[in-house]
């Protein structure tokens, strides 16, 4: 993997992360922010895998796996709260 390609990957992932982060901060309604958080967590899972790839150690993939499992639970909990399921 060449340096140029690596920079392109970082810019694309970071740009997507930053745009959804802006929606998370600026979003008008709570559900907008929740959707932005969902997108952010998925992009970050990709970023964690990229970091593990750069370090070249497959055991770091566990972090990405745990994150993808538990961010799903977090977003589901937010959705259930907005739906009135966490009273």
């Amino acid at each position, binding site marked *: 993997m060449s340096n140029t390609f690596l920079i392109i990957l970082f810019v694309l992932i970071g740009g*997507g992360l930053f745009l959804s982060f802006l929606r998370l901060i600026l979003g008008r309604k709570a559900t907008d922010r929740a959707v932005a958080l969902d997108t952010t967590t998925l992009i970050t899972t990709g970023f964690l895998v990229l970091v593990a790839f750069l370090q070249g150690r497959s055991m770091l993939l566990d972090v990405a796996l745990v994150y993808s499992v538990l961010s799903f639970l977090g977003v589901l909990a937010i959705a259930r709260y907005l739906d009135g399921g966490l009273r």
Partner: protein
Amino acid sequence: MSFMNILAHVVTGLGALVLFASGLGVFRMPDVFNKMHAGTKATTLGSVLFLFGLGLFEPSWLPKLFLIILFIVLTNPVSSHALARAAHNEPSEKPDNLIIDDLEESKGGDQ
């Protein structure tokens, strides 16, 4: 540069591009349901392509990456569906640009 290497570059780059598109979509779309279109479909395919492309660089990682991919494909639509249902049920969260709304009618008919 072998064929495998070129394929890995192409797939990874496409995945990163789709992830960027999902961020842009979430930023630009006007209301919550349309944001969800970008935030679900694009992130799912983007993650699949990106992780699979990285796996092509390092084939011994593929089983674990497949596990992450499988989990994302299974759970992402569910969380999106739960959020959509919550957004429709909460009156203050519901967008007002819907042309047809059959769900509201069927709810109104019940009560």
